[in-house]
């Protein structure tokens, strides 16, 4: 299950990466004197935001995992004692 959740996050990050690129090329690039500079900055911003999404997402997934583990531990204890 962790795999699918991370896949979710990674996919969204990828979408963000592309989305930034598209919006940048249309609106922000014309403001730059040289294309080189614009492309470099675009990549930095796009990767940055995507990475941010991954970090936030991973943190949320990890918290969810921990909560689940705690819940299971809570259920297991009476069973352990019964053994």
């Amino acid at each position, binding site marked *: *299950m962790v795999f699918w959740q991370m896949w979710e996050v990674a996919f969204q990050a990828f979408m963000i990466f*592309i*989305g930034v690129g598209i919006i940048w*090329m249309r609106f922000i690039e014309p403001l730059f004197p040289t294309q080189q500079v614009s492309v470099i900055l675009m990549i930095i911003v796009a990767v940055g935001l995507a990475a941010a999404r991954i970090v936030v997402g991973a943190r949320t997934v990890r918290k969810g995992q921990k909560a689940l583990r705690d819940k299971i531990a809570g259920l297991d204890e009476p069973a352990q004692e019964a053994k």
Partner: protein
Amino acid sequence: MASIDVSSPQSSGTVQKKQGRAMSDRWFSVILILPAMIIIGFFALYPLFYAIGISFRFADLTGGGVKEFVGLDNYRTVLFNKFFWESVRTTLFFTIFAVSIEVVLGVFVAFLINGATVGKGLIRSLLILPLATAPAVTGLFWRYLYDTQFGLYNYFLGLLGLPQPNWLGDINVALWAVIVFDVWLWMPFVALIVLAGLQALPKEPFEAAELDGAPYFRVLRKLTFPMLKPVLFLVIILRTIDALRLYDAVAVLTRGGPGSTTETMTYYLYRNGLVFFRMDYASTMALLFLYAVVVAALFALRPLLNMFGGRAATR
């Protein structure tokens, strides 16, 4: 013969058997889906990667084929192309109006039919008919129906004393001609689905409301529509997805004209790819479109899948 796994002394026999069974179940399930997945994967992913590849290259088929790498230039060209954005505007205009009209009329008709006492089966059978046809075929015939001289529609409009527009020739009317065709084709679809949804609603709340003497419109607002929300949402999504991709009707009714007033995004894409033979621009546009659709889906589909609960919910 069924295999009975020897159970270990620790856990119970059924657990061990379930684990052993789970392993070979896995294999079985994977083998079953393999052929279909391979085909879908190969033929859905390969064109995708192919298109991605072309979108970064110069590809004018009249000039001999796929050529050199041009980086993001195709994207820049497309994003700044005014005809591209025109087609996007046309597509959005069409989608919003066509879908709204279809849904509103369809819901209205569904309620009408739901309250009918006789002939529901016959009505449903008749409503399905347009959907069995090929839009490209019936659409072509609608050119004859829309004809200003010989066409039936203007004849009827004349009989009723209403204005008889030049459906396919007037730049202000042409897109509406396409919208009317689409409504004709899909309003029954909406009506049938909403009708099914209505008929699937539980009876008890409505009986209780009737006993309480609740007025008709209050029942509609507080009871019927909230319960219909999943169905309505589904219908709107399905129609929107299809309306955004409109091609057939445009190709046979108007060919994008007059001028380019009915040129939807997919039609403009087709023109670039197979009329101008600029596969590079066509692929780029296709990818941009796909991106927009996937992003919209991420927002719209999750709630949809969740609304339908166990049937298609994720994990």
